[in-house]
C-alpha cells in the first residue's frame, strides 16, 4: 500500500492523465461517434478559460492562499469589455477589463500581504464587492449598446482551419509562461517557498509581502483574461457569466496535485485537471441527466478525487 502510494504520489499527473483517457474512452463507448477531432477541438476550446482561471488559483494555492473573487472578476472584466466597446473602442475596452483584474488582484494582495487578512475572507469580500459594483454599474448604463468585439468572438469561438481553437493561441503561451515561470524563475521559486514556510522566508531575507502581492495581482489578471475569453465563447455578457467556474477552477488545481496547504504542486497537473473536468462535464451532458443530478455527480467525483489524492500524498 505504501509503495503504491509512493508510486502514485510521484506520478500523480500521469495517473490523472490516465483517468482522463479512461473518461474519453467511456464517452467513445457509450456514445459511439462522439469522439471526433471536432469534439476534441471543442473540449480544448471550453477548457481554455477554466485553465486560465485555474492557473491563477494554482499560483495562490502554492503560496498557501486562495482567491474566491476570480469568478466575479472574470464576469466584471467581460461586462466592462462588452459595455464599453461601442464607446471607446476595442483596445481601450480590453484594457479596462484587464485593469479591473489588476485592481481587484492588488486589493486582494494588499489585504492579504500587508494587512494579513485571511485570504478566504479577503477574496470573498472583494468578490462580493465586485459583484455588487457590477450590478450598480449595469443599472447605470441600462439601455446602452452591448457589443462584443468581433476579434474577441473569434478568440473565444473561432477555429483555425476549422480545427484548432483560436483561444489555444492565448492559453498555450500563458501555460508555457506559468510552467517555466514556476520552475525556472526566482519568483516561481519564492511562491513555493512562501507557501511552505513564511517564517523561514523571512529569516532568509525575503520580503514575503512582495511575493504575495505579485501572486494576487497575477491571479486577478488571469481571471480578467479568462473572462474575456469566456465572453467570446458565449457571445453575450451577463452578470453571472463566470459564476459556475469558481469551484471547478479550484478543483482543477487540487486534483492536479497542488496542495491547498501550499508549497507543493504545479501548473502541469492543473492543465490535466482542467481538461479532466471539462471532459467530465461533457460526459455528464451526454448522459442527458437532469441538471441537479449532473451537479451531484460532478461534485461527488471531484470530492472523491481530491480526497483520494490528499490521502495518498500526506
Amino acid at each position, binding site marked *: 500500500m*505504501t509503495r503504491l502510494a509512493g508510486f502514485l504520489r510521484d506520478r500523480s499527473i500521469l495517473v490523472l492523465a490516465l483517468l482522463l483517457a479512461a473518461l474519453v474512452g467511456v464517452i467513445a463507448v457509450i456514445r459511439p461517434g462522439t469522439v471526433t477531432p471536432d469534439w476534441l477541438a471543442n473540449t480544448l476550446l471550453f477548457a481554455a478559460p477554466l485553465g486560465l482561471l485555474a492557473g491563477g488559483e494554482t499560483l495562490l494555492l502554492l503560496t498557501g492562499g486562495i482567491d474566491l473573487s476570480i469568478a466575479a472578476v472574470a464576469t466584471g472584466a467581460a461586462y466592462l469589455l462588452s459595455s464599453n466597446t461601442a464607446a471607446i473602442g476595442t483596445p481601450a475596452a480590453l484594457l479596462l477589463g484587464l485593469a479591473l483584474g489588476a485592481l481587484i488582484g492588488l486589493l486582494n494582495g494588499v489585504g492579504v500581504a500587508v494587512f494579513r487578512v485571511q485570504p478566504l475572507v479577503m477574496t470573498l469580500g472583494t468578490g462580493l464587492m465586485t459583484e455588487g459594483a457590477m450590478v450598480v454599474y449595469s443599472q447605470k448604463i441600462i439601455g446602452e449598446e452591448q457589443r462584443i468585439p468581433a476579434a474577441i468572438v473569434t478568440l473565444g469561438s473561432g477555429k483555425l482551419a476549422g480545427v484548432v481553437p483560436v483561444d489555444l493561441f492565448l492559453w498555450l503561451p500563458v501555460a508555457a509562461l506559468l510552467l517555466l515561470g514556476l520552475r525556472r524563475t*526566482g519568483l516561481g521559486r519564492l511562491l513555493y517557498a512562501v507557501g511552505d514556510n513564511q517564517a523561514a*522566508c*523571512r529569516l532568509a*531575507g525575503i520580503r514575503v509581502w*512582495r511575493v504575495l502581492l505579485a501572486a494576487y495581482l497575477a491571479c486577478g489578471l488571469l481571471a480578467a483574461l479568462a473572462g474575456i475569453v469566456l465572453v467570446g465563447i458565449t457571445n453575450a455578457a451577463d452578470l453571472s457569466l463566470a459564476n459556475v467556474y469558481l469551484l471547478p477552477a479550484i478543483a482543477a488545481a487540487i486534483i492536479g496535485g497542488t496542495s491547498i496547504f501550499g508549497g507543493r504542486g504545479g501548473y502541469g497537473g492543473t492543465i490535466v485537471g482542467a481538461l479532466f473536468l471539462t471532459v467530465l462535464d461533457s460526459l455528464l451532458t451526454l448522459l442527458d441527466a437532469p441538471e441537479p443530478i449532473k451537479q451531484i455527480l460532478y461534485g461527488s467525483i471531484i470530492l472523491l478525487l481530491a480526497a483520494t489524492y490528499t490521502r495518498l500524498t500526506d
Partner: protein
Amino acid sequence: MADAATLLEVRDIARRFGSVVALRAATLTVRAGEVHALMGANGAGKSTLVKMLTGVIRPDAGSIQIRGTPRQFRSPAEARGAGLVSVYQDPALVPDLTIAQNLRLARAAPEVVRRWLAQFGFAALDFATVVRTLPLPTLRLIDLARALAAEPDILLLDEITAALPADLAQHVFAVARQWRAQGRSVIFISHRLAEISALCDRATVLRDGVTVGVVDPAQGGEERIVALMLGAPPEQPAAAGIAAAAAPAGPPALRVEGLRSGEKLRDVSFSLAAGEVLGVAALEGQGQEELFDCLAGLRRPDGGSILADGMAQRFRHPADAIRAGMVLVPADRVQALLPQRSVQENIALPLVRRLADWGALPIRAERARVADAVRRLNIDTRAAAEVRRLSGGNQQKVVIARWLAAGFRTLLCFDPTRGIDIGTKRQIYALVRELAAAGAAVLLFTSELPEIALACDRVVVLFGGRVVQELPAAQADEATLLRAAHGLASREGMAA
C-alpha cells in the same frame, strides 16, 4: 539475558517507512531499578523505538516483553495501561488550551501534576494559563509532571534535557534517581554524554537501526559509546587545541553598545572581531534570544547601537541584517527550513531574496554554489528531494550551508547543536572554527556549557539581560560559567 529483575525486553524489533528502514534489529533490555540510556546518532532509530514502546507506531517484526509477558500496544493508552509512559522530544501540549484543559485532555490528575511541578520549583504556576504563552522549559516540565502523574513503571525521557537549562535539568535527574530507588525504570535519551555518565547505569547504543552494544557509561565508557555510535574510532574533540590558538586581531566585525529591547534585554555591550568565535553563555531567558533577534533583524531594539564593520545599523527586516553581512542560524531548524522543498532549493533560498532575482534563475551557477556548500558541510543528500526527510543534524547543516552559499561576515548561531548527535556536533564546531579561520566572525550561544570551551575564543555571560562576565575560553570551565550564569561573581573570573 532475561532474569527475574528484567522489566522490559525488546527483541529484534524492526520497522520500515516506505523504502527507509528506521529499525533493523533493535534489542533493549531494561532491568527494574535502572536508569538506562538509549544512545545513537541522529537517524539511528531512537525515536522510532520510543514510539513503538509507547504504542504510537507498530513494529513490523520482533517482540516486546514486559516482566516476561509478550505485549503488543495498539495505542499510547494501551502502553500506559502496561506502565510505559513517554515524554517525547517535542512538547505534547495543545498550544491554545490552558494547562488545566491540557491535563483534562490527557486525563491526568491536576493535583498530582501540581505536586510534581511544585517539586520542580513551579509551585506558583497558574493552571489557567494558556500553554502558548509559556516558555519552552516550563512546557517540558509540565510534560514531565504529566507523565509522572501516570505513575509509570517505565518512564521514557526522549531528549527532555535538550531544552532545559542546567538548573532545571537537575530536577529531571532527581526524578530519574527517585524512580530507580523505587525499583522502577527510566529509559533516558540525551545527546549529552556528561549527563549519561553521571546518571545512567547502562547504555544501549543503536547505529543504523541495529543495537551495536550495551555499555557501562561510568567507567570511561563515554569514548566507547561515541565509538559505537560512529562505527569508527572516535576522533579527538574537534577544537580542543584550535580554540586557544588564534588570538583575535583586526577591527571588530560586530560591535554592540548598550543594546536593550523589551523586558529581558537590558544593557548588552561587546565587540566581536573578524576571525573570532565569541561564545554567549546564559541560563534560560536571560535576554539571549532577544539579543540574537535584534542582531538578525527579527526584532527592533529599544536603545543602544549595533555596528557592523564600524557602520551603525538599524535593521527593520532580516534582509537588512543580511545586507550588512549578519546571518542567523536559529536553534529551531523547523523555523528556518522549507520542509517540502529540496535541499537545493533550501540552500539557494537567500539567493533569490531581492526583487532583482525574480527573473530567470541562474540554474547552473546556483547548482555549483549549492554543491560546493553541500560538499564542505558533508551533507547526506540521499533524501534530498524533501528536507523534512533528513535527520536533524543534516537539516541543521542545510541551514548553515545556505549562508555559506549566500556569503556573510558575521554568523549568529543560536544553540545550533540542540538535539544533534555527537558526531554531527563535532562537525559543526569544526566548521565554525574553520569559518573563523577563514575570516568570519561568529557569535555562538549554546545551552550546553561544556561546549563553550570547545568552540569559542572568548565568552560573555549574560544574566538578567546584562553582560556579567567576559572570559577567555581557556578559563571558561563549566563551574565558572555556571556560577556567573547564576549571577554569582566568580573568584576565578575576577582574578583573571
